[in-house]
């Protein structure tokens, strides 16, 4: 591998690059999809290639190829330099990178049971058992049970002498039951819409106990068909971790991406209402609100040894006791606010440039109340569980979420079920209204493997640790 990386870096330097890096990535994927007891698809994927990123005259260029070879390394490096020179014809501010020590070493996701080594028929049997349990419940129109695994073997080398090797393994699985009556279609899933994902091995899948939760999930899907719609109003809401992590993702993770604040995602994903001059003073949330970007937490989809420009994994405070204090950042953007990179540059494979992405953006737990205590402490409220739909404006202020289930809380007891539940608001108004956060007993990592950003599009795997929380005076029951 060093032959190829050295050749690419040498060629880039010889052609005028002041900085260059190269990533060689081999990605393996496996998916299993079962629908209503029918094995709908089993697929195994393999992708391999390398990408060369160069700085020439203060401008970026990037080129990539699936063909691994030293001659191709020359061609791709030269193409990257040519592209950078074209970039320089429309450049107003030359790029400078922060200083960091050359990165060297090896990192591997801790895996107890290699998901690619578990026999396929074993994995299919586990999913089939869960899917069958879903179908034990009468009145279910169709079911779906899925498994996925991804492994990236990644070598990073840079012209400053960095050389790292990483093996990152992610797995996920889940199930859903769908009930239909006329125009009404209700879906109930477990552990999450689209499955729960982690950086782990097959032991994570076994721990989900899909089959053990299937009958409950299917019963709830059927029950939702006859539940009343959630009435409109302003209510106290309690967000179960299965919804709270998406609230964190959309309304804290994305607006704290520093490239958005600088406008470089404006043409696609949008910008941010959190601007650098608000650092250290803007009240984002209540004093209970502590949010960090932590690439070191075990199990997170955003956990690694180094980011994709060789910055070591770290924990960066974003919100401290409700005050906005930090960003997800890169070597290019962090110096512009007088800081060092927070190590958040991540690329979706060999053929994409690294972008500022979430690592694991976590709402820290608070001692004092378990999640059950928060519910018991709520006289009149609503419990929202499992994300169903999500939307937020391009500056990450006005959001609206829907959940699969919503239950009334009266006198601290969970009661009647509502269907098609939604809540909406403005990001900082919601977080400022948070008056209870669950303790560590319900805190765990959640993750999404399909966070979209960038042009050309990239799907990011990002993690979120949450324990559940309560918010006051939230508008619910938005109707068309």
């Amino acid at each position, binding site marked *: 591998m060093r032959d190829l990386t050295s050749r690419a870096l040498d060629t880039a330097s010889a052609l005028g690059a002041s900085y260059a890096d190269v990533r060689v990535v081999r990605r393996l994927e496996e998916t299993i999809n079962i629908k209503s007891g029918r094995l709908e698809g089993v*697929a*195994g994927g*393999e992708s391999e290639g390398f990408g060369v990123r160069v700085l020439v005259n203060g401008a970026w260029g990037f080129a990539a190829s699936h063909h691994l070879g030293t001659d191709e390394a020359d061609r791709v490096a030269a193409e990257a330099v040519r592209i950078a020179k*074209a970039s320089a014809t429309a450049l107003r*501010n030359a790029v400078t990178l922060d200083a960091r020590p050359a990165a060297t070493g090896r990192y591997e996701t801790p895996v107890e049971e290699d998901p690619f080594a578990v026999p396929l028929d074993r994995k299919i049997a586990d999913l089939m058992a869960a899917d069958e349990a879903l179908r034990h419940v009468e009145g279910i129109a*169709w079911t779906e049970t899925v498994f996925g695994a991804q492994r990236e073997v990644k070598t990073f080398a840079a012209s400053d002498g960095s050389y790292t090797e990483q093996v990152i393994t992610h797995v996920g699985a889940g199930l859903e039951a769908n009930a239909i009556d006329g125009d009404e279609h209700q879906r109930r899933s477990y552990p999450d819409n689209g499955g729960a994902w982690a950086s782990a091995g097959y032991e994570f899948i076994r721990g989900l106990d899909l089959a053990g939760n299937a009958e409950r999930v299917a019963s709830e899907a059927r029950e939702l068909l006859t539940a009343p719609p959630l009435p409109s109003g302003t209510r106290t809401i309690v967000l179960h971790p299965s919804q709270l992590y998406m609230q964190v993702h959309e309304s804290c993770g994305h607006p704290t991406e520093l490239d958005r604040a600088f406008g470089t995602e404006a043409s696609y994903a949008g910008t941010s209402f959190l601007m650098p001059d608000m650092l250290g003073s803007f009240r984002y949330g209540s004093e209970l609100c502590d949010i960090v970007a932590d690439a070191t937490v075990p199990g997170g989809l955003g956990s690694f040894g180094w980011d994709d420009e060789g910055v070591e994994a770290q924990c960066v405070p974003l919100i401290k006791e409700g005050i906005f204090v930090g960003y997800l950042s890169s070597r290019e953007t962090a110096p512009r606010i007088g800081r060092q990179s927070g190590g958040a540059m991540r690329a979706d494979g060999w053929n994409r440039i690294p972008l500022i992405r979430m690592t694991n953006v976590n709402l820290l737990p608070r001692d004092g109340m378990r999640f059950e205590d928060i519910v018991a402490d709520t006289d009149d409220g609503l419990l929202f569980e499992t994300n169903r739909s999500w939307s937020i404006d*391009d500056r990450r*202020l006005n959001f609206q979420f829907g959940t699969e289930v919503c239950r009334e809380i009266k006198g601290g007891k969970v009661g009647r079920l509502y269907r098609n539940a939604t809540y909406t608001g403005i990001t900082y108004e919601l977080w400022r209204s948070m008056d209870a956060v669950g303790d560590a007993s319900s805190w765990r990592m959640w993750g999404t493997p399909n966070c979209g950003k960038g042009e050309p599009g990239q799907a990011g795997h990002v993690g979120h640790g949450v324990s559940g929380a309560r918010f006051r005076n939230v508008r619910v029951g938005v109707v068309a």
Partner: protein
Amino acid sequence: MSATHGIGGDPEEALRLAREVVEAAESAGADEAEALVVAGESALTRFANSEIHQNVSSAEVYVNLRFVKGGRVGVANTGRMDAEGVRSLVERATAITAHVDELEAWPGLPGPEPFEPVTGAWSDGTAHATPELRAEGARAVIAAADEAGVTAYGSFSHEVEAYAVANSHGVGIAERRTNAQLLTVTMGPDKGTGYAEQCHVDATAIDAAAIGREAAQLARASANPVELVPGDYPVVLTSYAVVDVLDMLGYLGFTALAVQEERSFFEPGKRVASPLVSVADDSRDPAGLPVGFDAEGVPKRRLELLAEGVCRDLAYDVATAARAGVRSTGHGLPAPNPYGPFPTNMVMAAGDRSLDELIGGMERGLLVTRFWYTNPVHQKKVIITGMTRDGTFLVEGGRIVGPVRNLRFTESYLDVLAAVDAVSRERRCIKGFLGGSVVPAVRASSFTFTGVTADE
């Protein structure tokens, strides 16, 4: 971007590789095998704050093998095209097949059908596009923004692709395709934003300066937006917003799998939209981004999805067609495909009004440039929530009176199409979920806005 290495944009080379993979699969014991090869090169120049900040190119190949033995189906894919890559691909697909059960209703891979090669899918202009051409386009947009006193953000991209499918039943079909897209968001100093986009098979046909001027003018016009009380308003939706309506209908309703799973609004003969709304899926329309066949090698048939507001045709792939006892319409996606078939080239019929006439016909309503971050709230009723973005304007007495702050909507797209009372003559080619759509602007008599964003 000349295709000088690998397969590049050579369809015969892609078909040769597809056949090689099928033969290798058959030699490994497959009763049936299908190989899809997509090989090409893509490039994108991205600009922000009126300067280029990202600039990339990539040469890629994707080979997807469906290996069938005794009704057992395994799928594997690879990004390698060397002998070892093919060997590994076949080995993995074979291994999967050995571990899965026989499908109860395996319809078999399709056989060959008559195919008239599609015209207009390829442009030498795109095939030879360079980083310098993209930089020139970016500079033209930036110059238009500079002139208007606003800042430009956007991207200029193009790709060439060789697309080939071969299978054991004699399917051997290939074509080459190109496309290009330039889009820009412009932002002014007083919270004004604008948007414009152009897609074309030929990168050299993109009029970057015109796109820049259109977006810059919008950013100027939308400066200092005021808050409007949410509620029901008549609307004019530009093409950039209408494409989202079509995409959502395609995703939630026009696909046979959604109908078979009883989660679609679609019923043949049912009126769901105004008689002014006709939507076809026409992969040969030269105004779009033409393609000839799908990922299963089935030639694409023209579909009348909505004929004057009435549900007519559905998109089928081989599996859903077999369940329904009909032929595939050529709308299959690469296997394994849990999402079902998809209409990739939607074309909405033009009307007889100009955009100014659509606006002029509103006593009090809103002009919406585009939608953002839309997501289904109720799939079967196609109730969608999302935000307006990059220019939302209050119209009174048929004239634009000023910009308003972005609004949240929660609305059934079917109800919107039912309320359409005028359609524009002009249509645009805009990239949709999976292909190029050709869409006009529309006016609808009612649209429900449920919130407004903050002014932080």
